[in-house]
């Protein structure tokens, strides 16, 4: 009972002199843990040969069956972020982080039981369902506190945390690989014990964030020692509540901005390995392609920090404008890098890396963009709703890529060339995002809540 009351929002209000630089590590500990979801694919192959161990046997799960685990987790992430956003604002980040740790760590344990007894539905329920709720809660929980503690540098603050979500895969993949190698034997792939250990490690790691996070006191005003952006018409000093925000065109334009940016990024992310191998046949093999995927992960993570920090100086709208203009140029350039044209692997890698950095940058800059337009009061909940654009892009992106490529191949276009049309369509999507971003104007004062938020000193 004492522990539960410790989780209350009132108990997590910072005391006088609390150092706000303890908040980003707390946020990072949550995002680094849940970012593991991006590396879940390392479990796919071992899960497909649980019975046969060295090779798939009859009764082993197929690739599409196993692929559903990740899809369910991401789908539940989107839904839980949208559903729990308002609850999180009411109950505070500490309770949300604790629940996220229980769900995410517990999800691993339930999934491990499913692996042990070869019950796929238990893995869907454990990692996909329970873990997915942990993902949604964990993703949102540090966003609002960070924006409130760092109202002078919101881009930097959210970039630091959301960078963790990109970086989680960099840790999750080698961790899972090494644990499975450690626990594997001639009769076991080592997936179940690896999942148990990972569940415990991630739960413990997330507890650090739970105990370190603090909520800003009501009268908190940061000394603007790091003020980068000067107050302007596009940065509101008022709050717009969740319900009202959903009725504004700004919300839906931002939804489309995120959706187009993510769809284009997923177009590369999902196909990185086959794309580079097919566009540079006989030059890039499977091993080098896996190196390319690792390279993209680094840029996905770095872009989250770089672009969102930059947005503190040039503004959120300008940052997204840059994403769309640069993105358009990069996606079109990619079509000329293949072996049929410039035949330049280096140029291909550079362009793809820039594109991926902007994919990550979009996620990291969005909370600060929302804060600029809607204030900090319900920003966590509003961000939760905007994240449904991610779920939509997660479905739209791969479907679009597969559909266009199939159409091209059916027309007799060579595989290597079939990616050109995909990339051109993605470039077109970025133009649509560019227009949506241009249309975004400050929220009308009739939508403001009555109580103005604290003004920066």
């Amino acid at each position, binding site marked *: 009972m004492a522990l539960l009351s410790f989780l209350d929002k009132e108990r997590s209000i910072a005391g006088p002199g609390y150092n706000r630089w*303890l908040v980003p590590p707390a946020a990072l500990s949550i995002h680094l843990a849940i970012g593991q979801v991006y590396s879940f694919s390392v479990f796919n192959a071992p899960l497909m040969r649980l019975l046969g161990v060295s090779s798939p046997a009859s009764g082993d799960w197929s690739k599409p069956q196993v692929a559903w685990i990740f899809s369910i987790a991401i789908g539940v992430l989107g839904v839980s972020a949208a559903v729990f956003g308002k609850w999180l604002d009411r109950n505070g980040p500490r309770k949300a982080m604790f629940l996220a740790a229980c769900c995410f760590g517990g999800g691993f344990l339930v999934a491990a039981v499913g692996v042990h007894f070869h019950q796929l539905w238990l893995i869907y329920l454990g990692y996909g369902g329970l873990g997915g709720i942990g993902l949604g809660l964990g993703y949102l929980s540090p966003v609002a506190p960070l924006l409130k503690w760092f109202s002078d540098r919101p881009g930097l603050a959210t970039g630091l945390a959301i960078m963790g979500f990109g*970086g989680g895969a960099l840790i999750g993949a080698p961790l899972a690989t090494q644990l499975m190698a450690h626990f594997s034997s001639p009769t076991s792939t080592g997936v179940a014990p690896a999942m148990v250990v990972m569940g415990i490690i991630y739960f413990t790691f997330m507890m650090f964030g739970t105990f370190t996070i603090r909520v800003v006191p009501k009268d908190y005003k940061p000394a603007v020692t790091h003020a980068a952006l000067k107050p302007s018409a596009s940065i509101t000093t008022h709050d717009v509540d969740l319900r009202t925000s959903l009725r504004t065109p700004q919300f839906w334009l931002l939804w489309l901005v995120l959706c187009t940016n993510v769809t284009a990024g997923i177009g590369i992310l999902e196909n990185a390995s086959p794309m580079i191998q097919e566009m540079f046949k006989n030059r890039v093999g499977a091993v080098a392609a896996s190196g390319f995927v*690792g390279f993209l992960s680094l840029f996905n993570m770095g872009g989250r920090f770089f672009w969102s920090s930059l947005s503190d100086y040039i503004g959120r709208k300008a940052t997204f404008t840059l994403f769309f203009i640069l993105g358009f140029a990069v996606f079109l350039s990619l079509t000329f890098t293949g072996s049929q044209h410039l035949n330049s692997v280096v140029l291909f890698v550079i362009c793809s890396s820039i594109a991926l950095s902007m994919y990550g940058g979009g996620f990291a800059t969005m909370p600060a963009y929302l804060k600029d337009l809607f204030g900090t009061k319900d920003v966590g909940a509003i961000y939760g709703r905007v994240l449904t654009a991610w779920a939509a892009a997660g479905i739209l992106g791969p479907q679009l890529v597969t559909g266009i490529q199939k159409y091209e191949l059916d027309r007799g276009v060579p595989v290597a060339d079939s990616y050109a049309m995909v990339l051109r369509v993605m470039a077109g999507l970025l133009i649509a995002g560019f227009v949506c971003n241009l249309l975004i104007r400050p929220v009308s004062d009739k939508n403001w809540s009555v109580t103005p938020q604290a003004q920066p000193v």
Partner: protein
Amino acid sequence: MTDQPAHAAITGRPKGVAALLVALAWLFVGVPIAWGVYSSGKRASLLFRAAPSAVKNDATEPAVKNRTPPHLAATVP
């Protein structure tokens, strides 16, 4: 809480201890990040390690090649 400096000390503790706590917190999350970046960097280096021999092979071949995808190869004379 008003006008709190960015690096304010935690109440009741000397400034050095507060800074140490912040440093430890960053170390706690920084070590796994560094390990992850190192591991991925090692994997990413495979891309560049594989490149030289591949470029050598390619230099002896015509720039335009492989216009036929593998799954269509059988149907093209």
